[in-house]
């Protein structure tokens, strides 16, 4: 089958191409014909120049295209993404810091408010206590005053009563003396009562 293929091609070339080409083809064609056995295509040197040329052309263009267009584009995309990720991470870190700060500030405020609340409570308690103390002092003062007044009155009454006691004793003593011994001078009796009551 391969032989027929090669022949078909050769006849094509012999028709259309120059004599020089015909010669090269006959050279490669000879073993096909003689051995009735096709050269294994990958080992057919006649195809080498063309394969090398087209490999050089296509691979060369491919290399240039990769180097100039495709790879810069991909590496650009990757770089942008890397930058963006780094940037986002930075931003996230910054935001976390801000959040931490906010939490710290909030806690500080909370502590302050608690202190303040404690202060207000203490003040209110102090004020209430002071008021209560003042009231008590007032009441005590009043009571003291009344007590003093009452004591003074009691004193006065007592003194008066004592004075009366003296007179009553003198009278009684005079009456008793008169009953017993007769008359006694008023001055003597007063002196006697005085000595007894003292």
């Amino acid at each position: 089958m391969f032989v027929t293929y090669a022949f078909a091609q050769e006849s094509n070339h012999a028709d259309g191409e120059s004599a020089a080409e015909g010669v090269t083809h006959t050279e490669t064609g000879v073993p096909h014909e003689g051995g009735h056995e096709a050269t294994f295509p990958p080992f057919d040197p006649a195809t080498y120049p063309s394969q090398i040329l087209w490999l050089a052309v296509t691979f060369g263009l491919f290399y240039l295209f990769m180097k100039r267009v495709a790879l810069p584009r991909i590496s650009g995309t990757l770089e942008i993404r890397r930058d963006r990720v780094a940037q986002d991470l930075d931003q996230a870190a910054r935001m976390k810091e801000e959040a931490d700060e906010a939490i710290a500030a909030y806690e500080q405020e909370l502590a302050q408010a608690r202190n303040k609340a404690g202060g207000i409570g203490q003040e209110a308690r102090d004020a209430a206590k002071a008021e209560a103390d003042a009231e008590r002092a007032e009441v005590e003062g009043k009571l003291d005053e009344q007590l003093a007044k009452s004591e003074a009155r009691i004193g006065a009454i007592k003194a008066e009563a004592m004075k009366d006691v003296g007179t009553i004793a003198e009278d009684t003593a005079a009456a008793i003396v008169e009953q017993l011994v007769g008359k006694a001078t008023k001055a003597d009796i007063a002196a006697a009562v005085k000595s007894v009551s003292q």
Partner: protein
Amino acid sequence: MAADKVDPIHQFHINKLIPIEIGGFDLSFTNSALFMVATVIVASAFLVLTTSSRGLIPSRLQSVSEMSYEFVASMLRDAAGTQGMRFFPFVFSIFMFVLVANLLGMFPYFFTVTSHIIVTFALAMLVIGTVVIYGFMKHGLGFLKLFVPSGVPVVLMPLVVAIEVISFLSRPVSLSVRLFANMLAGHITLKVFAGFVVSLSALGLTGVAGAVLPLLMAVAITALEFLVAFLQAYVFAVLTCMYLNDAIHPGH
């Protein structure tokens, strides 16, 4: 013509599409050339079209392009260091070219560019040529230190140097034959099993029943070939990276 269909070599034939002859050389535009052009167009179009939106959040296809970029970039950076990144477009082009050529070859009736030794050998020589030229440009004669490992006794030196030289010279051969042989053998195997299916089916009912086995085989080998297509492109690119590393850092 029935025999043609089963001929596993048929797929490697080179047909002239536009005959060109210059200075006694046959430079015709062949089916091989056509598929080289197709490879370049498919690879370029894929890379450019998928990345055209330059999306911050990549679409699926865009991330395929970006993954291939980063895949080759990390491969080269691991093998040859940051200094090797100057060869990144080169390695990336080789990887994409071989990969797309291999994958295109998986389509039925398509020609596999990399199943021809001359193509893989030319690519391998391009790599080795780059290594040698860059090595001498960068290090002058110091590049020859590549063949003189440090810490080897003087007595053994001639032997070691000879081995190093031979191993260096065999690099383009092993590099090209590995890719070529893998693609060639895979496609022949696939074609042989597919041929069994066709010829067995022609034998009647028993033949059709018997054709199930080679059919399953052909399906399995197709899957394997997709793996090989990727793997060989990867191996070619990795070895390119390692050889370039020798050019950049010739001292062992």
